[in-house]
């Protein structure tokens, strides 16, 4: 299926190469991500991240052209994700798969990539179990344990003794809840109440009442980005919780794509997360410079950088093993690099990314824009939660 390109390149490549499959080739990467529907933002962010990576690092790896082929998964739709994966592998002849915003979509391709030995790079889907389901999954994104547990430890260190946990009643929410609770209780803190809120809810006043009634030092929240996080932060302010001395702790609630909509209500919210575009490093600066050059209107966020790093992982796998799936996976284990989010490594055991987690506060920057300003770093956090009995 792969077509031979330049004869000259073939000759030189053959002369040079010892590593597997050394033609000058088009190496295809199939990306399955939502580009339509309510979650289309993810697809846009992924594309921006990949574009930026290719603009900086070129479209070729050792003479092979890397081509990304996009397929729309819509929302959570495992049937469609699976049939896209089949089609990408057998018709397009892709050697790598990537993307996946939602856990079920990723899990649905586990058996396929096992059978076809296709390394698959998860750009977002954040449930710990994913990398266990197939040895061909690599995940340079994050898990909720990874960010919520360090936040709990940090919060306890700040003198927060009693918290209420309020999460959306679905698996990522439960992951965040468990991660936070485990770490917080281990540190000696007390969880006064745990509230699991219906996923579809956007009126949070009653939950805020519950939080108030419990009278904690802080409330830790996790909700899916979008209307729920917006309404939650609004309700937190409207119900006078800041005045009652209840600090809001979160993870992705102050995501850059909803931050402006939140407005001043978000000021002073503390979150723990693995990336803020406000991150101060030359790598991030270079990344953002190229990104805004390509897409002046883009609002980069965690998923942009996850896709950017995902592209890096793919490039490195191609560099090391060409199209040999099992070898590529071996090669990626233990891979280290400096990402725009900071120094990172692929954990050889879990094939998940080990990364810094930053404690941030929402502030207005010099231009008056709302940003997540990092002020404390918890270094080299691995995926902490591989199992979760709900």
């Amino acid at each position: 299926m792969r077509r031979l390109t330049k004869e000259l390149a073939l000759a030189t490549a053959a002369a040079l190469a010892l590593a597997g499959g050394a033609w000058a080739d088009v190496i295809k990467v199939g990306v399955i991500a939502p580009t339509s529907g309510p979650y289309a933002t993810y697809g846009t962010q992924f594309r921006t991240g990949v574009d930026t990576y290719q603009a900086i690092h070129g479209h070729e790896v050792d003479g092979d052209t890397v081509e990304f082929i996009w397929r729309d998964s819509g929302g959570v739709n495992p049937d469609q994700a699976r049939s896209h994966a089949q089609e990408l592998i057998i018709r397009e002849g892709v050697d790598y798969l990537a993307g996946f915003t939602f856990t079920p979509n990723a899990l649905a391709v586990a058996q396929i990539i096992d059978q076809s030995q296709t390394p698959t790079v998860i750009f977002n889907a954040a449930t710990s179990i994913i990398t266990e389901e197939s040895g061909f999954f690599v995940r340079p994104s994050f898990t909720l344990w990874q960010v919520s547990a360090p936040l709990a430890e940090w919060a306890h260190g700040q003198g927060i003794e009693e918290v209420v946990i309020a999460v959306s009643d679905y698996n990522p929410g439960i992951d965040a809840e468990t991660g936070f609770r485990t770490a917080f209780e281990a540190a000696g803190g007390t969880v006064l109440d745990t509230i699991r809120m219906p996923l579809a809810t956007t009126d949070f006043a009653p939950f805020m009442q519950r939080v108030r009634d419990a009278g904690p030092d802080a409330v830790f929240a996790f909700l899916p980005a979008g209307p729920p996080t917006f309404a939650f932060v609004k309700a937190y302010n409207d119900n006078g919780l800041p005045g009652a001395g209840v600090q809001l702790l979160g993870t992705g609630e102050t995501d850059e794509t909803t931050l402006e909509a939140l407005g001043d209500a978000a000021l002073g919210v503390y979150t723990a997360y693995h990336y803020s575009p406000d991150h101060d490093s030359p790598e991030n600066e270079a990344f953002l410079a190229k990104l805004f050059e390509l897409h002046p209107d883009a609002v980069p966020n965690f998923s942009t950088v996850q896709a950017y790093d995902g592209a890096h992982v793919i490039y490195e796998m191609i560099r090391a093993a060409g199209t040999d799936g099992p070898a590529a996976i071996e090669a990626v284990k233990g891979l280290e690099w400096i990402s725009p989010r900071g120094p990172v490594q692929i954990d050889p055991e879990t094939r998940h990314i080990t990364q810094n987690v930053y404690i941030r506060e929402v502030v207005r920057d010099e231009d008056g824009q709302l940003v997540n300003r990092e002020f404390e770093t918890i270094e080299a956090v691995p995926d902490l939660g591989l199992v979760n009995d709900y």
Partner: protein
Amino acid sequence: MSSSASDVAPRRPLLAGRGLLWEAVILAVGVGLFFLFPYDLGFLSRILIMIVFVLSLDLVLGYAGVATLGQAAMYGTGAYAAGLIAIHVTASPLLGLAAGAVAGAGIAFVSGLVLMRAHGLTLLMLSIAVAQVLQEVANKARPLTGGADGLRGIRMDPILGLWEFDFIGRAGYWYVLTVLILVLLFLKVVVNSPLGLSARGIQESPERMRAIGTPVYWRLVWIYTIAGGIAGVAGALAAQVTALVSLEVFNFDHSAEALIMLVLGGAGRLYGAVVGVAIFMLVEHVAAAVDPFNWLFLIGALVLAVVFFVPAGLLGLPKALTGLVRR
């Protein structure tokens, strides 16, 4: 034609020869597609499963004239039943299908006891509410269903012990195609049976059905139950082929899209469901590929065009359109 001797036919076989033309065409097309599009078997399987699902709605809506927006309740229940059976009891595909059918029929029967008393908006809302409750139950039953991560760990045995589910989806495709043809034949028998005739009677005039001594409510519950069994089969097929079940099987969109596809093809005709699903999913597939951001325009316009320019009663599209499609 008007002589009374020729009006009395001898006892007819269940499935008469010429009446199988459509099934033969669908089978031939199904086989042809396998060879024409060997790379799209996953997508094609999804179309075939959707046809089974829409056929189940056709029985309720197209024949009995009961408009609901909650058919996904039975589809989802069937999917979870098949998945759970595969994980905990037996990985035999056929037993999984049976489990899906029984579970779908069961939930249809129980909810039908409430639903089939209602009409109009109330019925629509009730049917939506049932699917929502089931979705929330599946979400809460995380240890069993995997919640929002999906029900994983489904590994099916080879079909009849002979054909392994392969990652290209060949075995899956033949399996789904076979089940679809069987479902079509089953429904063909049902709609031509006294039960099918009474369903059409109920659609035409429930009052009159009562006046000729039919317990309309129970008849509807029974029809809804059968349809639920078929929807359960569709869900089971999806669970087995994808090897994963997610909460989204209960989504409202799922029920609504099935309705759109059915009316697009023509409700009250079995092949209408086939044509409607094929056209809708193809349009969606192409439109989503061409302009993923704006394809909803096309779908919306398509729906309106069907409703406005092919003025149809409850029986769905007039022969004109299906004739056009049939070519």
